[in-house]
């Protein structure tokens, strides 16, 4: 069969189009991802545009008050209690005023009571999180729906860039297998494995079934949780009423934890 140039070009272009079309059809058929109709969020889940916390440490009067919040979080999330302090894993912890607000601690004549107080610290779920920017695998990411800074343990490769980037020390690395150092495992929640970074996830698993974060529940009102974008939420009312500060605001990460300062009758 002989063919002139024009016929050849026609045939070639037609078969290219057919081939590309067929490939896309086959791709669509063999695509095993779930249909939208097959999957949806739990109707009980709490919703917000951007979750935030207001922490009033004046309501935490005893050591036991702090420890109750810390223990409940670490128990339900299977956070290991590593004997080596350099391998410490923590989701929520307490620290001094000087360490919490380092750029204001040089003031010698300010309220002594405040300066001697311990503060409850956990992931700030920043609006502009540095950890998310540096993660090479997108293992840590900001949830579009509610602003929680999440950690996908399946993707984490343990490079620890996020630990270097986080200005608040909210992230811990599993230098050892965490399993032997978990006293009582919570069977409803996974543990982590050696070589991944972990941190507070704002109890996303509890929000999904309509519960408040565990530390909020156990804090006797010292931690209030709510939607920072909703002007009528309890957190927004507290922030409007009282004087609050955030940790290291000069870094521009826009933390979502507000610490109530003072609250005395002249405040």
């Amino acid at each position, binding site marked *: 069969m002989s063919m002139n140039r024009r016929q050849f070009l026609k045939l070639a272009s037609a078969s290219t189009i057919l081939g590309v079309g067929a490939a896309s059809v086959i791709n669509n058929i063999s695509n095993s991802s779930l249909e939208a*109709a097959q999957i*949806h969020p739990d109707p009980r889940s709490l919703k917000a545009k951007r979750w935030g916390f207001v922490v009033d440490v004046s309501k935490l009067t005893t050591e036991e008050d702090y420890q109750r919040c810390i223990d409940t979080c670490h128990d339900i999330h299977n956070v290991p209690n590593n004997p080596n302090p350099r391998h410490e894993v923590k989701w929520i912890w307490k620290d001094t005023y000087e360490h919490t607000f380092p750029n204001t601690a040089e003031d010698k004549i300010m309220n002594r009571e405040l300066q001697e107080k311990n503060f409850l610290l956990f992931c700030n779920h920043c609006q502009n999180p540095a950890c998310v920017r540096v993660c090479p695998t997108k293992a840590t990411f900001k949830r579009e729906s509610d602003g929680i800074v*999440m950690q*996908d343990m399946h993707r984490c490769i343990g490079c620890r860039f996020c630990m270097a980037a986080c200005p608040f020390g909210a992230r811990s690395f599993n230098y050892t297998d965490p399993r032997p150092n978990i006293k009582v495992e919570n069977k409803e929640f*996974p543990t982590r494995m050696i070589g991944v970074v972990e941190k507070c996830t704002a109890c996303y698993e509890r929000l999904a079934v309509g519960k408040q974060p565990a530390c909020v529940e156990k804090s006797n009102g010292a931690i209030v949780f709510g939607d920072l974008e909703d002007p009528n939420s309890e957190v927004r009312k507290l922030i409007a009423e009282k004087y609050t500060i955030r940790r290291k605001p000069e870094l521009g990460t826009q933390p979502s934890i507000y610490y109530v300062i003072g609250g005395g009758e002249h405040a």
Partner: protein
Amino acid sequence: MYNSGKIIAGLVVFFILATLPFLLNLGKANAKIEPSIDTPEINAMPKKHCVETKVFMRAEHMQLLNNWRDQVVRNGNRIYVGSDGNEYQISLQNTCMKCHSNKKKFCDKCHNYMAVKPYCWGCHIAPKENEA
């Protein structure tokens, strides 16, 4: 042909050695791998069913689990509607393993046979089982 006796004898020996593994197993049935669904939770079901059909689960459970993982962790979707119309909580530990509480006789059966080592259990807590 020179040395034909030695060559033919050598070939016969080689053929027998090379095919020995097949000859020894000739006529024997392969050990059948049967993941057990004999757990108290499954036995208590009035009508035994999984989130999808047995055939689908056998072939596609890894894709399903991968999709479940991404939907929960990354999109916050926690309810799966099976093709039977029932709704299921998406959770390896709290849904799959609540029924299949016999990991050693269920998951491990095929995974060991196929020599695949999924790393689910590095983090997800397997149900407590009695060594039997």
